[in-house]
């Protein structure tokens, strides 16, 4: 496979193609007839998925550095160039994104009935933004992608969303923008400090990373600005209030992409930028304590609030707050296991929560209600749906053998040494997850079939099964044999740990010790 990719010069053009292709796809979507918009979008997103699949082999898994880096000058006066590249972490995030897009397009097949051209154009623009954000290696370019994807999501929520969509859309937009604008000032300030020290104005990621120490006394402020932007995106506990609104009001595809990909941009930002730039601040005892406490609050609070939701979509939305808390905990614990675990949670949360939102969308199309109380005993009417829903819910709970288990287990294992109390408390989150999801399952799917309206439900059709098949395959594969994914992320995770460790002696012990255990 590698030879074939080399023979077509894959590494040279692929990253640019991945960013540009969806944007070019917008043109035929907008110009074509309304009825063919979804077909065009499906073609483009599938093509993107096929193209991106080659990255799996193109990336050299033995190196943790950024690869396939390509630079094009953009605004030379300000030291800005269009610079893209990837490592193991970006690889899995890009693949997750490109996989979720065709699935979301298929998931919108029937539910989006008005202004289809606009909708699919927005989906493709969003794809460009999402892929770009994970590939960008220039702070200016990263910022632009980070901001620009707000627009398509704003429209997706605001035009095609539920009844309260206008409020949810503007709340989503303003929350995210508030954080990112402060990050903008921080980016400019950091580059300015580096320019003062090195004499070179450059927004290039490597340059900034190498000289981030130049921030000097400004470092805590700059870290705070970066952290706020990403904390809102994740979202970490007190900044999460936009999330339930946005997730619930968004159409199915919007919820899927928000949960599966966009939340990960926050944690990715911590891994790629905020912590490696300012490790002394980020991992100082005071900041660590704050982050870990907030992460644990998020885990438990998200789970408890999820438990009392009457609306199944809102329940899943709050469960995201809980799951992302694990990611934050793992990032801050800073062992290979915990970081790998965090990455696994990011991926498997994408699969499980994406699948849950899709399933909720499917049942909503049939019954037009999301209230748990309106269902009950539907396993008898829609057995396939119920089976798949159960499997996905179990994977979200973290049942061993399914994907959710691997990540959360690694996080807990890797974090125990650093934060014993927090880890113990976080473990209760797993139990709560079992509680809220199993209880919801029981009320929706099992129990007695006592509502006559549910008797006329139809089971999943071929298209819907085709949507769920890759997700289920991923759920089982990641649960049983996560090693190939872990192996590709490991060098990047190790590099992250090295970058953030103040002393390099302590690192190798933990790395070798855990690496042996991670590999099956």
């Amino acid at each position, binding site marked *: 496979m590698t030879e074939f990719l080399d023979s077509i010069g894959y590494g040279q053009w692929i990253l640019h193609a991945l960013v540009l292709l969806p944007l070019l796809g917008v043109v035929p979507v907008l110009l074509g007839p309304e009825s063919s918009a979804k077909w065009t979008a499906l073609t483009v997103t599938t093509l993107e998925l096929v193209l991106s699949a080659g990255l799996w082999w193109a990336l050299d898994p033995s190196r943790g550095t950024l690869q396939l880096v390509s630079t094009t000058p*953009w605004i030379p006066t300000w030291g800005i160039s269009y610079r893209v590249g990837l490592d193991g972490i970006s690889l899995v995030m890009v693949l997750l994104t490109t996989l979720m897009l065709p699935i979301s397009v298929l998931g919108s097949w029937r539910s989006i009935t008005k202004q289809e051209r606009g909708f699919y154009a927005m989906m493709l623009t969003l794809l460009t933004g999402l892929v770009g954000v994970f590939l960008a290696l220039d702070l200016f370019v990263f910022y*632009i992608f980070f901001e*620009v994807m707000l627009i398509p999501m704003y429209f997706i929520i*605001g035009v095609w969303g539920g009844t309260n969509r206008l409020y949810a859309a*503007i709340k989503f937009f303003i929350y995210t923008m508030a954080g990112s604008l402060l990050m*903008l*000032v921080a980016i400019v300030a950091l580059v*300015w400090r580096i320019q003062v020290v090195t004499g070179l104005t450059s927004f290039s990621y490597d340059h900034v990373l190498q000289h981030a120490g130049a921030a000097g006394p400004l470092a805590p402020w700059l870290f705070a600005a970066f952290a706020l932007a990403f904390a809102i995106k994740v979202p970490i506990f007190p900044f999460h209030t936009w999330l339930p609104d946005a997730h619930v009001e968004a159409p199915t595809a919007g919820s899927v992409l928000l949960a599966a990909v966009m939340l990960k941009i926050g944690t990715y930002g911590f891994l790629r930028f905020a912590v490696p730039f300012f490790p002394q601040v980020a991992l100082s005892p005071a900041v660590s304590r704050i982050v870990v406490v907030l992460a644990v609050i998020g885990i438990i609070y998200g789970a408890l609030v999820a438990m009392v939701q009457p609306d199944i979509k809102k329940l899943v939305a709050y469960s995201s707050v809980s799951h992302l808390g694990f990611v934050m905990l793992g990032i801050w614990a800073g062992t290979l296991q915990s970081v790998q675990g965090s990455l696994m949670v990011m991926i498997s949360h994408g699969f499980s929560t994406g699948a849950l939102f899709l399933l909720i969308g499917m049942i909503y199309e049939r019954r037009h209600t999301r209230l748990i109380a309106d269902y009950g005993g539907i396993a008898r009417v829609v057995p396939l749906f119920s089976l798949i829903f159960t499997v996905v819910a179990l994977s979200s709970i973290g049942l061993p053998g399914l994907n959710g288990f691997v990540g959360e287990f690694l996080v807990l294992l890797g974090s125990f040494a650093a934060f014993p109390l927090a880890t113990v408390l976080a473990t209760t989150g797993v139990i709560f997850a079992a509680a809220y999801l199993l209880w919801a399952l029981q009320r929706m799917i099992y129990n007695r079939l006592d509502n006559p309206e549910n008797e006329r439900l139809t089971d999943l059709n071929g298209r819907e099964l085709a949507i769920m098949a890759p997700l289920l395959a991923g759920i089982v594969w990641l649960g049983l044999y996560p090693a190939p994914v872990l192996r590709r992320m490991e060098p990047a995770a190790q590099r992250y740990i090295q970058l953030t460790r103040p002393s390099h002696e302590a690192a190798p012990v933990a790395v070798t010790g855990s690496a042996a255990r991670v590999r099956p």
Partner: protein
Amino acid sequence: MNRIDLGSPLGVAMALLPEILLSTWALIVLLVVSWRHETAQDSRLAGWLSLAGLLVSGAGLAALWVTGATPEGLPQMVALDPFRYGASALALLAAAGTVLISLGYLEREGLLAPEYYPLVLLATAGMMFLAGAEDLIVLFLGLEVMSVAVYVLAGYNRADPFSSEAALKYFLIGAFASGFLLYGIALVYGTTGTTNLSIIGAQLSGRPIPLMAALGLGLLLIGMGFKISAVPFHMWAPDVYDGSPTPISGLMATGVKAAAFAALVRVLLEAFPSAIGLWQPIVAGLAIASMAAGNLVALAQQSLKRMLAYSSIAHAGYMLVAVWTGTHAGAGAVLLYLLAYGLTTLASFGLLTALGRGGEREVTYDDIAGLASPRPAIAFGLSVCMLSLLGFPFTVGFIGKWYIISATVAEGQMILPVILVVTSVLSAGYYLPVIMAMYMRPAPGPDHHAAVGLSPTAAAAIALSVAAVLLFGLWPGGLLDLAGTSARTLTQTGLPLAGP
């Protein structure tokens, strides 16, 4: 390099080529319309003639700019540097956009007195004098020429009491501001014995600033503050913008503001670099007040025209942040932001003319609900404008804000940029609802938007502006270099000065 001797009459004529061409042309148009001022056709003729005049003046300006005209020795009366050329070009662009938008607008509103166009030309000539003044007297003359023409234009719709109110209010406040400015000039002259900016700068350098000059500087700042509508000298702006014919509101927000900002930057950087410790806190205070008040009050507006008026106060605040730096980078940021803001605002006011009738005072957020499906092009253009005003990436508004933030951060100042971005977030609260109304809400009635439309000329001008907003947002490199190099010449033409 084209050296011009400002001591000889020929040299002065060369140096003032664009202004002379424009003023003469205005008089010719005035002459033409004194015979032909009856029909819509006459009005159109005057409009096209004026546009040609703007082009001719622009050609004169280009001749100076391209040949790199610099003064022989000390610049007297009028500056010869790319900063002036850039600011003058902005004024000409704003005027051209205004004329193009007005062509259809005046006919539609029945404002068929073609003296309108010569007045626009004269106002523009005033702006160019103001932007290029190297002497406080020229500055004052330019300001008055500009203002008097704009007073008349503000009240052009005589049938509309709000238009008359706008004119009267603008006139009274403007006269008041001129008084401050003149008093300030007198005090500065009293201290230094000169009105030439470079010589004032040389006189004041190297010693603590005398009290009288400090008072003069303060009065100058107040006078300028009125013209750029900085808080707390902004009270007139919403009512005047609101009552004036919409293309004139656009001209005030772009051309008048551009000229006044250019003059402000030049006065502060050339005449008062040594007093930077004195004016920086004042400018910072004005900036913070303008950003906060402009954005907060704009949030409460229902009418789009008033919203744009308050937002223009907020944008004056952003630009004052760049002025605060007192550096060349800051001056470049002001120039670039003026262009960004000018393009976007002209297009916004132009689009506003498409939405309503009778001065557009009544166009509210509710009125544009559901505009996107019957009028996709107008909705798209207005959305791009709103995003650019918000400072969103891939629009020139973002580049402008980025430049201001860089220039300010480079002075080690973090508080002003943070206030700038925080208040920008507030502005999302009134720019986004415009997009929201057009795309996400249903139209109030089936034929609600039947009357919405633009004349071909206005559509062309707006389309060009919107395209420029997007293009410069994507490839800002050339523009940045231009703004940067233009600003760098600002104090080099004068005496070797002490200062930042």
